[in-house]
C-alpha cells in the first residue's frame, strides 16, 4: 500500500514469496533519458520484479487541442506538426484528410503521391531515431550515429521540399505546400538506392547480436488478444502477429496503388517489435521507389479558391484573385458543419484526427487520437512481472513520443 503524490493510492497484494517481505515504491522519471520526453512512472517493486506501474503523464501538455480551436482552419496545420514531433507529416495528413472530407474535396493525384512520399520518408526518419535511441539505452552506442546519419538525410530532404527540417507543415488541407524540386528527386533517388544497404548495416549490428537479443527476446510480451483489448496499434499489434496496418486494411491517400507487405512478427516481445520496424524500413523504401516511378503530372492543390490562395501571377491580373487572397488571409474559410474522423498509419500506430465544425472559420473541436497515448496504457500490462532493468527495453520498443501523449 503506498500513496503517490497524485493523491491516488496504489494497492497491490504482495505476491507469494516476495523478497524481503515488502513492496517498494520507486519513482522513475520524469527526467529519465529512456523515457523519450518527460514520462514519470510510479513503479512498485518486489525486489527487482515489477508488480505495478502507474504512468503519470501531462508534463508536456501544451493545450494543442485548445489552440486548434482558437486558430483558423488553415492555421491549425502548424500546430499539428508539433505534438508528435517525430512524425509531423502524418499529423498534417490526418488533419488535412479530416478537413478535406468535411469540405468535400479530393486532393489531386500528384498531391496524394507527394503525400505518400513524404509520409514514408518521415516513417523512415522516425524509425531511425527510435532505433538509434532505444539501442543506445540498451548499450549499443554506435547505432545512434548510424541511424542519425540517415535521419539527417531525410531532414535535408524535408528542408529541400518545404524549407523546414522538422516542422514542415508541408501537407495542408487541399493539397501540399509546394511541388518537389529537381534537386529533391535527385536526393530521393540517391536515398532509396542507399537505404537498403544501411538497413543491412543496422541488422548486422543488432539482429544477431547476443547482447541485444538477451535484452529484448521474450521481454515485454503482449499477446494479440491483449493488444486488441488494450487498443494498441502500429508495431505493437503487428509485433504480436496481427496483420493490421491502415495503409493496407483501410487505404487512404492512394496507398492501395502500391505493392508492399504488412510487416508482421509473431512473437509479441520487444525483439519482434524491433524486427517489425526493420521490415517497415524496407517496405517504406519499396513504396518510395514505386511512388517515384509512377508519380503523375498535374496540379498539387485542389482548384478551390475558397480554401487555397490563388497563384502569385494571377494576383497581378485578376480582381477576383485579389479578393480571394484577401478573404483567405483575413478571415479564413468556413467549413460546413458536421464531424469526421480520419486516421492514418503513423510510425507509432493509428494516428487519428476527429474534427467537429460548427460552420464557422474555426474548428469547434479537434481531437487527436494519439497512438502513443493509447499504446502507453499497455505498458503496465507488458511490464508486470518483468525486471526493473527491462522497463527500459519495454518503454523503448513501445516507441511512445511524450509530446504526442500529452498533446
Amino acid at each position, binding site marked *: 500500500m503506498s500513496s503517490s503524490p*497524485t*493523491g*491516488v493510492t496504489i494497492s497491490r497484494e504482495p505476491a507469494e514469496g516476495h523478497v524481503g517481505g515488502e513492496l517498494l515504491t520507486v519513482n522513475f522519471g520524469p527526467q529519465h533519458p529512456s523515457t523519450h520526453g518527460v514520462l514519470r512512472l510510479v513503479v512498485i517493486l518486489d525486489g527487482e520484479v515489477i508488480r505495478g506501474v502507474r504512468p503519470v*503523464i*501531462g508534463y508536456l*501538455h501544451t*493545450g494543442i*487541442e*485548445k*489552440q486548434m*480551436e*482558437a486558430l483558423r482552419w488553415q492555421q491549425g496545420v502548424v500546430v499539428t506538426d508539433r505534438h508528435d514531433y517525430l512524425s509531423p507529416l502524418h499529423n498534417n495528413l490526418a488533419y488535412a484528410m479530416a478537413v478535406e*472530407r*468535411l469540405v*468535400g474535396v479530393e486532393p489531386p493525384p500528384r498531391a496524394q503521391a507527394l503525400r505518400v512520399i513524404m509520409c514514408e520518408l518521415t516513417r523512415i526518419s522516425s524509425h531511425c531515431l527510435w532505433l538509434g535511441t532505444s539501442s543506445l539505452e540498451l548499450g549499443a552506442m554506435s547505432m545512434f550515429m548510424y541511424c542519425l546519419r540517415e535521419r539527417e538525410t531525410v531532414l535535408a530532404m524535408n528542408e529541400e521540399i518545404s524549407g523546414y527540417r522538422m516542422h514542415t507543415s508541408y501537407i495542408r488541407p487541399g493539397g501540399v505546400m509546394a511541388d518537389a524540386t529537381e534537386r529533391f528527386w535527385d536526393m530521393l533517388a540517391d536515398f532509396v538506392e542507399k537505404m537498403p544497404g544501411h538497413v543491412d548495416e543496422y541488422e548486422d549490428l543488432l539482429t544477431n547480436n547476443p547482447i541485444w537479443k538477451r535484452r529484448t527476446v521474450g521481454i515485454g510480451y503482449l499477446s494479440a488478444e491483449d493488444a*486488441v*483489448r*488494450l*487498443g494498441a496499434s502500429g508495431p505493437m499489434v503487428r509485433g504480436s502477429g496481427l496483420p*493490421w496496418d491502415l495503409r493496407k*486494411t*483501410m487505404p487512404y491517400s492512394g496507398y492501395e496503388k502500391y505493392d508492399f507487405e504488412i510487416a508482421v512478427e509473431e512473437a509479441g516481445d520487444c525483439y519482434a517489435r524491433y524486427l517489425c520496424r526493420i521490415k517497415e524500413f524496407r517496405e517504406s523504401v519499396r513504396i518510395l521507389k514505386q511512388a517515384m516511378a509512377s508519380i503523375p503530372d498535374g496540379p498539387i492543390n485542389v482548384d478551390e479558391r475558397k480554401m487555397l490562395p490563388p497563384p502569385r501571377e494571377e494576383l497581378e491580373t485578376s480582381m477576383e484573385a485579389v479578393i480571394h487572397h484577401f478573404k483567405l488571409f483575413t478571415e479564413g474559410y468556413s467549413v460546413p*458543419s*458536421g*464531424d*469526421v*474522423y480520419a*486516421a492514418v498509419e503513423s510510425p507509432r500506430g*493509428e494516428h*487519428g484526427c*476527429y474534427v*467537429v465544425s*460548427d*460552420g*464557422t472559420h474555426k474548428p*469547434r*473541436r479537434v*481531437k487527436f*487520437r494519439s497512438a502513443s*497515448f*493509447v499504446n502507453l*496504457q499497455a505498458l503496465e500490462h507488458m511490464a508486470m512481472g518483468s525486471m526493473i532493468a527491462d522497463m527500459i527495453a519495454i518503454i523503448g520498443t513501445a516507441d511512445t513520443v511524450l509530446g504526442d501523449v*500529452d*498533446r
Partner: protein
Amino acid sequence: MTKAKSRAATSHKHVEEEGVSAGDRWIRVSREHLVATLRALQAEGYKSLLFMSAVDHLATPVRPSPPERFELIYQLRNLDTREELRVRVWVPEDDPVAPTASEIYAPAGWDERETWDMFGIRFDGHKDLVRILMPEDWEGHPLRRDFPVGGETVDFSEDHEVWQTAPEEA
C-alpha cells in the same frame, strides 16, 4: 451483404437517431442506455474503441440548437468488417455525469480521465477518475468553451481573442 450487416448493427433497440456525417456512420443513444448499447455493439464485433471524448456545444451557431451542452463521442471499429461506428450521447450541463465504459473497453480508462480533466464530465463507476494531463490542483476544465484561451496580443496585430465564449455570451 456488408450493407445488410451495417443496418443490423444500427437497428439496436436503444438507438434514438442515426445518420451519416461526411461518410462516417453514427448513432445516438441516451445516457441510460449507453452501457447496454456499447456491450451489444462489442458483442456484434465492434471490438475496438478508437477513442472517446466530448464536444462542448456552448453558444454554437449550428441550427437547430443542440438540446444539451455536452456530447460524448465513442468511435468504434469492427476489425473484421472494417466498419466504423460513432456512438453519441447528450450530457446536460447541470448534471455532467455519464456511466463509465472502461469496464467494456479498456482504452476508455484514460480517455475518460482526459474527458473529466478537460470537460469536467464525471464517469460513474470509473475506478481512478483523477486528472491526467493538467496538474491535480488545477482549477477549471480547459477544453470547455468558456475557459479562456489565454495568451497575449502581439503588437501591431489584430486583437487576440482571449475568450472563445465570453461569460456574457454563455
